[in-house]
């Protein structure tokens, strides 16, 4: 729209002169006020009647552009109010859900370092490494799922699902349990287990001979429960008391 650019170019010099122009139209003042207020509007330059000074007239761009501008402003204002609120909520949920996986990872790392120091049995070391990778994948999956959730009820369902996996210390989630959501929670739980086990099976297929050597068979939905069981058996193999896993949950 080249004529719009031409219009704004002419704007400057015209404004200076017109304030003191006795012949100027009163409506020019109204227009100037209008312009400063409506800079994003379409401006059409029209030649005044009888060869008078050039007038700017705002073409009634109609409700469309007014609404859009108001809408944009409204969006910005609304966002500013809830951004921090949403952040705080998400932060709390993310931390509470992931901390259990972190604890599991830390525990496995401790066992790994114990192995290195006392018993350099490579079979156990590689098994622990595989479990660590599995936990990492679970953690990643959970995080991705959490972040893709757009409405609060689903997050609650996820927390319920996780609680069902016998994770301790999810006390806050207990307060959120809503009986009306039981059906959905069961579905989410199954889906979560299925997806997590899918990830795990990828890990398992790669050099887990030491695992297969054990008569212990992987249950239908391994996920976190399976990792915990494997960790427990590992501890027994190391000849260490199972009490060291007390902090994790009810095994």
């Amino acid at each position, binding site marked *: 729209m080249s004529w719009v650019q031409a219009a704004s170019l002419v704007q400057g010099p015209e404004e200076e002169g017109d304030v003191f122009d006795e012949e100027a139209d009163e409506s020019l003042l109204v227009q100037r006020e209008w312009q400063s207020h409506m800079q994003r509007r379409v401006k059409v330059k029209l030649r005044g009647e009888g060869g008078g000074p050039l007038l700017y007239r705002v073409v009634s761009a109609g409700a469309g552009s007014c609404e*859009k501008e108001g809408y944009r402003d409204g969006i910005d204002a609304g966002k500013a109010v809830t951004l921090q609120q949403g952040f705080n909520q998400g932060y709390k949920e993310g931390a509470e859900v*992931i901390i259990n996986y972190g604890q599991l990872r830390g525990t496995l790392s401790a066992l790994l370092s114990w192995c290195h120091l006392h018993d350099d049995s490579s079979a156990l070391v590689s098994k622990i490494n595989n479990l660590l990778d599995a936990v990492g994948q679970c*953690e990643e999956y959970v995080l991705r799922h959490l972040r893709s959730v757009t409405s609060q009820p689903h997050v609650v369902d996820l927390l319920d699902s996780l609680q069902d996996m016998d994770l301790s210390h999810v006390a806050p989630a207990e307060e959120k349990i809503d009986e009306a959501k039981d059906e959905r929670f069961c579905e989410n739980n199954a889906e979560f287990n299925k997806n997590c086990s899918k990830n795990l099976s990828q890990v398992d297929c790669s050099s887990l001979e030491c695992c297969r050597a054990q008569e212990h068979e992987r249950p239908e939905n391994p996920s976190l429960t399976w990792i915990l069981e494997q960790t427990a058996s590992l501890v027994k193999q190391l000849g260490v008391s199972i009490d060291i896993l007390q902090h994790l949950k009810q095994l």
Partner: protein
Amino acid sequence: MAGDQDMFDAVVMADERFHGEGYREGYEEGSSLGMIEGRRHGTLHGAKVGSEIGCYQGFAFAWRGLLHSCATERDSKKMKVLEALIGMIQKFPYDDPTYDKLHEDLDRIRGKFKQLCSLLNVQPDFKISAEGSGLSF
């Protein structure tokens, strides 16, 4: 000219009315967008902290159990540092992003963890960090 004046008045009033309506709709939309966006970012940062803190905590608890099972005199210093680390973590509000000493306390916890690792003759890098175990942010 009076005609022009009326025209401007009409447009001004129409503008305010439509601006207001658009604003209200936009505000509602923006509010929910802000919640979603804020929550998405918050989840990421909260999980980062939770993962790290949980890792130190699990590591410390496990080692406390391991040391208990075969305690020697040399281990008293290790136990002291262990208990100090566990205590620091217990006190740390890991789920509160508005905690004013968040970074300060987090750094102290990291320092204590490194001290513990050196006492235990353990390399702190392997598998402790999120990246090491396949997690990437």
